[in-house]
């Protein structure tokens, strides 16, 4: 049975993204991945907007958007695999957005083969998502050569956490503004003015981590902090990305908590206490590395 993160839309079904704000939001259309899967799916509620660890994982293959890595952490503990494809290879059409430059649907599975087989069915260009590679499909073939693994510390390693958080919080705060009680979702009961409608709705219906993300995002984007935080983080992101040398190595061996693959849009495979990341569109190297390490 394939489970869908509650942030992936299925027409007519509630897509709550784990939030009280959307507990009555009936999705108006099917996500592209749902259309391509073309089989009945169950739904699984994970942490609110991916900002908190999930209370439980379903017993089956799970499609989810794990930006903050809370799912990945649980997966590593449970002896499962978490496979996140290259940013821009799986359509975001029908995915409730968090940080647009990092959102990407991936798979929680028992083995990478299971995960790749599912990804092959859903990945590929979709004109309804403007930020995608043009490839029509991906085959995730293992490369002929054994992959070169890189375990050493990377340059700018100390910048990854701050850059990831600043950009993720800023983008999420922008994508949370649509939840205002006006068009759909939760609406506070006691309000007199428009201002009260907005503030009470959002204060009552968001969990703490979501509120934190919204506030930190506003701080990072504010006139007082934009240059020192957001703008600098964007520039540091380029330094981080450009420091990667996939000409010298094929797979990075990283801690499970590392935010580097999400920040740089790299495909990654997490299992049993380690996170592997490969170069853009080089998912096959992950499978080869997994086999080598297992």
């Amino acid at each position: 049975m394939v489970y869908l993160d509650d942030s992936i839309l299925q027409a007519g079904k509630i897509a709550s993204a784990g939030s009280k704000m959307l507990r009555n939001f009936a999705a108006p259309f099917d996500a592209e991945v749902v259309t391509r899967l073309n089989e009945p799916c169950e739904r699984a509620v994970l942490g609110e907007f991916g900002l908190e660890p999930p209370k439980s994982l379903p017993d089956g293959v799970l499609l989810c958007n794990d930006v903050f890595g809370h799912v990945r952490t649980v997966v590593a503990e449970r002896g499962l695999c978490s496979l996140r494809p290259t940013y821009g290879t799986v359509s975001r059409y029908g995915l409730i957005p968090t940080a647009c430059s990092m959102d990407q649907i991936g798979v929680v599975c028992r083995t990478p083969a299971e995960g790749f087989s599912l990804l092959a069915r859903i990945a590929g260009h979709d004109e309804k998502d403007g930020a995608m590679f043009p490839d029509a499909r991906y085959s995730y073939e293992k490369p002929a050569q054994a992959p070169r693994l890189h375990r050493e510390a990377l340059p700018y390693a100390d910048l990854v956490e701050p850059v990831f958080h600043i950009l993720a919080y800023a983008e999420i705060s922008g994508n949370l503004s649509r939840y205002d009680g006006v068009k759909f979702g939760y609406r506070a009961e006691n309000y007199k003015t428009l201002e009260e409608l907005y503030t009470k709705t959002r204060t009552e219906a968001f969990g703490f981590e979501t509120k934190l993300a919204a506030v930190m995002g506003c701080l990072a984007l504010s006139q007082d902090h934009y240059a020192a935080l957001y703008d600098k983080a964007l520039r540091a992101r380029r330094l981080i990305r450009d420091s990667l040398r996939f000409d010298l190595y094929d797979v990075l061996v990283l801690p499970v908590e590392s935010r580097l693959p999400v920040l740089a849009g790299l495909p990654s495979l997490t299992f049993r206490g380690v996170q592997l990341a490969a170069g853009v569109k080089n998912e096959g190297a992950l499978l080869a590395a997994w086999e080598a390490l297992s």
Partner: protein
Amino acid sequence: MTQPYEAMAKLDLPEDERRELKLRAELFLKMCSPLANADTEGAEPLVSVLDFNSVLREDTAGQMLAREALLTNAPEQYDGYFQVPKTLD
């Protein structure tokens, strides 16, 4: 200290959450300090990791949803409109 940003996010936190938020904000800013010391001069902002240009959409109009379907989710509606308290201008 976090209050102006709470207001920007249209939030009005209860005292216990506000205290927690303030602590987390301090941790967040502390976590960001390596960035303050980093030399990012000469590095252009990387807004999207995708290195290519936009593919544009053809200009054809279509009706994706009937109005009724759209308004199904509306918490308050009136005569085909979404309804909110009176705005001031």
